[in-house]
């Protein structure tokens, strides 16, 4: 039961640690700087501790009575509740793939810079989803033009060059 509770309450425990840290870090600071962190940290810690207690209670009543209690069932999720398809294995794999794209893009930004990485990501993404070559070329070029025209020329964003291009002196 303990391992199941810990698995389902990882986020709650994480938040408990965060609020604990908020209080811990505030302790040594001057009164002006620590007043608000201490207040917010204490309130947050208290609330999350109660939530953790509720989750423990729910798990215990479930294990004793064998009846699924209500408390843990996606409560608070009216924001934009996770959909059924996202809970499936395929859904989780697709989500992991998106995080992979994010990580890849971030790596690309560090190594190749914005001018290359962003259009490259768009092109590769479309290629991965078997879009037509015409569309891939049009969209890749379109995004490259937006990066350069709108964000660099219009908004004057100084995009970093990327480590590889810097190293190659390009």
């Amino acid at each position, binding site marked *: 039961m303990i391992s199941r509770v810990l698995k389902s309450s990882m986020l709650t425990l994480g*938040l408990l640690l965060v609020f604990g840290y908020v209080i811990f870090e505030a302790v040594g600071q001057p009164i*002006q700087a620590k007043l*608000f962190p201490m207040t917010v940290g204490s309130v*947050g810690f208290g609330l999350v501790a109660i939530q953790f207690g509720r989750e423990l209670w729910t798990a215990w009543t479930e294990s004793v009575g064998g009846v699924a209690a209500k408390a843990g069932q996606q409560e608070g999720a009216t924001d934009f509740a996770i959909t059924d398809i996202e809970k499936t294995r395929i859904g989780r794999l697709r989500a992991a793939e998106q995080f992979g794209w994010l990580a890849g893009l971030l790596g690309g930004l560090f190594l190749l810079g914005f001018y290359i990485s962003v259009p490259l990501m768009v092109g590769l993404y479309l290629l991965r989803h078997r879009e037509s070559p015409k569309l891939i070329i049009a969209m890749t070029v379109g995004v490259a033009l937006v990066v350069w025209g709108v964000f660099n020329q219009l908004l004057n964003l100084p995009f970093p060059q990327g480590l590889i291009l810097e190293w190659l002196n390009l």
Partner: protein
Amino acid sequence: MSMLDAALAGLVGILHWKAFLLMIVGIVISSTLVAMPGVGSKTAIALLLPFAFVLEKFEAVALIVSIWAVSNTANSITAIMFSVPGGGGSQATIMDGYPMAQRGEAARALAAAFTSSALGGVFGALVLLAAIPVVRPLVLLLGAPEFFILVMMGVAMVGSLSGNAPLKGIAVGALGLAISMMGIHSLTGVPRYTFDSIYLFDGIGLVPLTIGLFAIPELIFLATRGKGISNVSLGNLSEGRMQGIKDAFKNWWLIIRCSVVGVWVGIIPGLGSSVADWFAYGHAMQTCKGARETFGKGDVRGVIAVDAATNAKEGGSLIPTLAFGIPGSSTLALIFGGLLIVGIKPGREILTTQLDVTFSIIWLLIIGSVLTSVLCLLFTRQLAMATMLRPSILVPVILAMAVLGSFANSNRIDDVVVMMGFGVVGYVLRAGGWPRPPLLLGVVLGPLAENFLWTSLQVYGVGFLVRPGVLILLTVLVITVAYPYLVRRRADSKARSVPGEGV
């Protein structure tokens, strides 16, 4: 500045060609994006916020506010035609809009929805206009202690009402407040929660945080779904249009009543479009002649009631946002943050020294509501075609915009890292059933709350907590937070006492 001068200055500011053009851009972007479920107005505002950095005051207001103000109009398209809610406020539109479309009356339903949206939007703006002379002296009466409680009330109310677990919502709001403390403390110069990172000395940027928190999880939702929401034929979308417009005007009294419902829901922080639409639908069902027999089977009055309410809500929700600095939703918190970026401070300032901005927002609501409805009526087919876009095309474009928008926050790649980090946080919160809106609200309102708290303590000592205004507000806060919980507990115990009915 007198109210009349401010009203005129606001109108002139909005009608300047650049501001007007940006308003049209905002309307087109908003109407197109809300037609695609999964990409809401919040994502659109977050992606366009970086542009506000280079815009003048009225131009920025025109762009940011127009995206939000009209987002409840075009979302009726997917609701009526495909039975897919385009946003929180269009769920009840499906009830009668979709059966009408199935009967071949899609054009009539859409025209009725767009017309009532315009009328509702104008009504909401007029209520906001009427509220200014009333709330202005009230705002000037309030001091730092009352404002501190009001800010905390905003976070707590949105936290407790944005889901069915008030505890989780308020805790996430507190997390947002904690995140807002990162950086150099303005009063003492002490670095707080910076982990010795120079980047964090300025705190976490609102733009990368919002994009990460909202756009990335929605993007993952889009990618996971894997296909567009529709590929069916759109059919005839012009026959019956005039009838729909006539229907709306014929039911003007219903529009006014439901607009009042919408404004009322809007004023209460935390209740969103998804509450306004069902309240209005319920009201129409109870008060319209023969509604119990015809509602749910394709009665145009069901569509009119919902769309009038959800659009009127926007005017109502601006009253606490502009007057007291309490954004009632995460989208309003984002607009609040956007206004701060361009130097406009909601609260006392926007009702005194920057009254022209308040009026420009009211004008924008009026002009934007009418313009959006006209554009939606004229380009229904084109907007409906947006639903056919495949996620495989949308996702990389939005991702590219998310990265570029985040970088624009402070021209540092660290912002992109922060955006991605909050993307993970947003996804994890969503997966765990912890609402995200209170977090954003906490981040936006945190610095204000801290200043008000410190000023209150300096001026009144701990005694600020027993000022009459504070006590009244605290009572309201406790009732608001506890009420939904008590109602649910009562419902649960009732269900338990009647075996079989609670299952």
